[in-house]
């Protein structure tokens, strides 16, 4: 490794602008003649829109236009789409109702837009929006999945009888039933995976500009995948053909999945910018974020696990109700199916698995991928089951896991996934050692003497990342391929630009990707820059989610670098009058092995562009591109152990220790990897202890601000102890697996397992607030 190459904790290049206030987020951008949009949103969970009277609003100062849902339908702007086709058990396609960008007839969740006011200033738009009179006829609403599928429940969409989008299955039901018939012990459990609001700190925003002369649109937007946004806006929403639409995602203040999707506000901003023929900016406020950003999780499950007399797992049965909210968001259908049930084997040998998932409409905000997307739900279920099983079977939770670990790779699970490599014992051992498991009983006894309840909880998670092999996801219903592209431009003076279809919104690509170049070509990181987030600069890309940027995007960069290196070596050999096979790269110099003859990369680059002396038939220039499509998912895995102390008088929990031992394959920048883990763990802990998006029966979100929705703050979480164990991923040239989601996937089960261990009552739902813990202590006593 060089000082800036693979494995070096290089400080981030992007941090100078961020620490000095020079970041450039969408709301920071101002355009000549810019107007401001404010949406008129439904205050009801379910209602008919009987009429909209804009006359008073139109007379207010600064108002440019008031546009309604009917107009957007009349202008043939397409309805929002769901890009992954999932079929029910009986082979029928999923049943979806239409989702127009603004509702012309019926609103189905609080916050759904019915009209938009365009005005000269933000305040004028806001004032006028209050003057828009909407005549609603309230309809009965339903927000809970069980209530939504019950007889007589309010119906959301005529297309989806009983509010059921699909009734899906995975696995072999007969084989699983057989396994249960043979079981010595069966452990059963009901689990709720609480609904979360993603809450990236930068609210979503869109700034659209229409150029009449060129009939061309530009959209600045808070997106994790600007190319996908352009594709969808062009192909499905009829905004403009791709060559007439440029999408720019500049600095983006966090995403966590919520900025993957194309939302109504972006569509409306684009459409309105042409209608008023002026740039239109919309910046959401936090309440709008709570009401309209796609939420995450919200599963209600029943699980059963069968064991033989030696405590080996024989089978797993799972039945899950997944809340989709009022409309099917872009990737929503895949989250509780192919991103969830396919991971139900966990780190274990489970010969038979059968999972049923029913996707359900309710009068709540749409639900889609949020950090981990399906995999946290699977991991939580399996790891709560394992801990519960250990308690019921009266065996050590670590040993029960160890006994059932997959140890031979590759391993084909009964639920599609083929684990390529891993060493689950290694991460368990590392975590046990770090937490001093042997000393726990003594610590527990000491805490008890001090009047505190101490518990320890495990979570041995696995996830499928590096999303995703295109052919595989295509066969499962995905509407897109999930490869990535890269282009390496070596400029005539030897500086280098890396163009990537991945998008950085906190992950540090501007540094990590430069390290890949530094490693390969020996140039300093300062001579390399990363270009991303602009459809005019980068031809195409699939964006950043599913811990894919390095495993897929980074691999595309490596492939392009290979081509650059090959051509540069040819040029160097020609210039040095040596054989190509004798050229090696050392510290940015192309050397002839065994001699002192060398030529520096800038001179090779210059030769490529002057083209005065190139090998016969060689094209000038030094620029190569590559597309990389992975052959399999990657499988990051690890063990988290949480040690916690509960005050029985108040139900308040306090972290004593939180240990994470992860196997992410090769680490390119360990500092950045650790940062990703810290952030993920905190979101997992947030889910376990604090966070919950709660609707009342009428569809009012009663946690629609930071006053009511408890975000983890510095005081709520501990400092973490991180360990790394390593098995190199065989599926990609870097040997990397991805690290962005692990913490959020593994942490919540460890926390709940620890608290339930401490209080001696296994019935505890997330978020485990002091109130709930206090009641659970009393109920368990």
């Amino acid at each position: 490794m060089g000082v800036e190459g693979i494995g070096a904790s290089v400080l981030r290049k992007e941090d100078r602008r961020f620490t000095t206030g020079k970041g450039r987020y969408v709301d920071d951008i101002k355009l000549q003649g810019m107007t401001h949009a404010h949406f008129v949103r439904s205050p009801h969970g379910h209602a008919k829109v009987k009429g909209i009277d804009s006359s008073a609003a139109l007379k207010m100062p600064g108002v440019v236009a008031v546009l309604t849902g009917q107009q957007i339908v009349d202008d043939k702007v397409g309805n929002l789409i769901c890009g992954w086709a999932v079929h029910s058990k009986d082979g029928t396609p999923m049943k979806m109702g239409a989702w127009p960008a603004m509702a012309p007839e019926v609103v189905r969740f609080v916050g759904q837009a019915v009209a938009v006011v365009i005005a000269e200033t933000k305040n004028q738009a806001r004032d006028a929006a209050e003057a828009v009179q909407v005549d609603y006829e309230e309809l009965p609403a339903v927000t809970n999945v069980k209530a939504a599928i019950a007889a007589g429940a309010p119906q959301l969409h005529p297309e989806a009888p009983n509010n059921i989008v699909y009734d899906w299955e995975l696995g072999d039901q007969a084989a699983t039933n057989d396994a249960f018939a043979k079981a010595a012990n069966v452990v059963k459990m009901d689990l709720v995976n609480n609904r979360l609001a993603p809450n990236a700190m930068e609210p979503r925003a869109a700034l659209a500009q229409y150029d009449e002369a060129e009939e061309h649109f530009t959209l600045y937007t808070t997106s994790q995948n600007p190319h996908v946004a352009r594709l969808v806006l062009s192909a499905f929403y009829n905004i403009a053909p791709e060559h007439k639409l440029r999408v720019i995602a500049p600095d983006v203040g966090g995403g966590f999945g919520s900025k993957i999707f194309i939302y109504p506000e972006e569509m409306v901003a684009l459409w309105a910018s042409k209608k008023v023929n002026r740039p239109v900016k919309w910046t959401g406020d936090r309440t709008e974020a709570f009401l309209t950003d796609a939420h995450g999780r919200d599963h209600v499950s029943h699980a059963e696990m069968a064991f033989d007399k030696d405590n080996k797992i024989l089978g797993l049965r799972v039945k899950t109700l997944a809340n989709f909210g009022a409309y099917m968001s872009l990737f929503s259908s895949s989250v509780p199916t192919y991103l969830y049930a396919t991971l139900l084997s966990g780190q274990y040998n489970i010969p038979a698995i059968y999972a049923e998932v029913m996707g359900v409409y309710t009068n709540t905000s749409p639900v889609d991928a949020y950090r981990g997307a399906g995999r946290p739900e699977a991991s939580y279920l399996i790891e709560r089951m394992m801990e519960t099983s250990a308690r019921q079977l009266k065996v050590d939770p670590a040993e029960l896991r160890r006994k059932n670990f997959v140890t031979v790779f590759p391993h084909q699970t009964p639920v599609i996934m083929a684990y390529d490599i891993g060493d689950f014992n290694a991460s368990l051992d590392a975590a046990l050692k770090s937490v001093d498991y042997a000393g726990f009983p003594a610590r527990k006894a000491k805490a008890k003497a001090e009047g505190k309840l101490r518990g320890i909880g495990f979570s041995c998670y696995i996830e499928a990342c590096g999303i995703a092999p295109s052919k595989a996801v295509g066969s499962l219903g995905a509407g897109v391929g999930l490869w990535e592209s890269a282009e390496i431009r070596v400029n005539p003076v030897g500086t280098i630009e890396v163009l990537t279809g991945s998008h950085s919104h906190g992950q540090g690509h501007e540094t990590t990707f430069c390290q890949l170049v530094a490693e390969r070509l020996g140039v300093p990181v300062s001579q390399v820059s990363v270009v991303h987030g602009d459809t005019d600069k980068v031809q195409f890309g699939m964006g950043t989610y599913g811990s894919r940027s390095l495993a897929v995007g980074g691999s595309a960069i490596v492939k392009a670098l290979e081509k650059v290196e090959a051509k540069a070596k040819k040029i160097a050999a020609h210039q040095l009058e040596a054989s190509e096979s004798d050229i090696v790269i050392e510290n940015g110099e192309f050397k002839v092995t065994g001699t002192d003859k060398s030529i520096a990369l800038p001179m090779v680059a210059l030769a490529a562009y002057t083209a005065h002396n190139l090998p016969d038939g060689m094209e000038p220039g030094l620029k190569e591109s590559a597309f990389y499509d992975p052959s399999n998912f990657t499988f990051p895995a690890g063990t988290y152990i949480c040690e916690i102390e509960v005050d029985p008088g108040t139900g308040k929990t306090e972290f004593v220790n939180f240990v994470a031992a992860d196997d992410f394959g090769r680490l390119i920048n360990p500092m950045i990897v650790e940062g990703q883990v810290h952030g993920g763990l905190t979101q997992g802990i947030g889910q376990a202890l604090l966070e919950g998006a709660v609707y009342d029966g009428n569809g009012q979100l009663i946690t629609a601000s930071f006053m009511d929705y408890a975000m983890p703050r510095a005081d709520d979480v501990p400092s973490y102890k991180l360990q790394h164990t390593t098995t190199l991923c065989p599926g990609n040239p870097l040997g990397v697996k991805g690290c962005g989601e692990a913490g959020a996937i593994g942490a919540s089960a460890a926390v709940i397992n620890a608290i339930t261990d401490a209080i001696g009552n296994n019935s505890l739902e997330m978020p485990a607030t002091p109130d709930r813990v206090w009641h659970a202590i009393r109920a368990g006593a």
Partner: protein
Amino acid sequence: MTAISLTVNGKVVSGNVEDRTLLVHFLRDHLNLTGTHVGCDTSQCGACVVHVDGRAVKSCTTLVGQVDGASVTTIEGLSQGDQLHPMQAAFRDNHGLQCGYCTPGMIMSAVDIVQRHGGKLDEATVRHELEGNICRCTGYHNIVKSVLDAAGRMSTAQAAE
């Protein structure tokens, strides 16, 4: 409309603003100082923290009229030319930021925390004092490290003066 005049990052600025104009909007929209961010509408997240006469203040909850005549420092005014403030440098050196959105407010709050506590800062105090600043990316681990690191650097710098 109200006529106001204040000092921002050492420069006197004046203007006529709507009475309801918040300090954060004045900074962002009138002065183009977009380093100060808005992350919420309930005065909870701290993305908007600036210094008013040397004290950390949430600029989303302050009318610009309230700071007439005051001296305001924003994230853009913290460094001395190219020389990063020790807090800015510590955030970079300790990977105390990811997406950068909470960072300006975090740094402005953190400078205030160190100034109020002098060198006597420990992890628990930093975590408690950061209660008004939300970060969704970092999990706070490295932010706490950054603040403690900067506290050391700032007291050394003070001692050298």
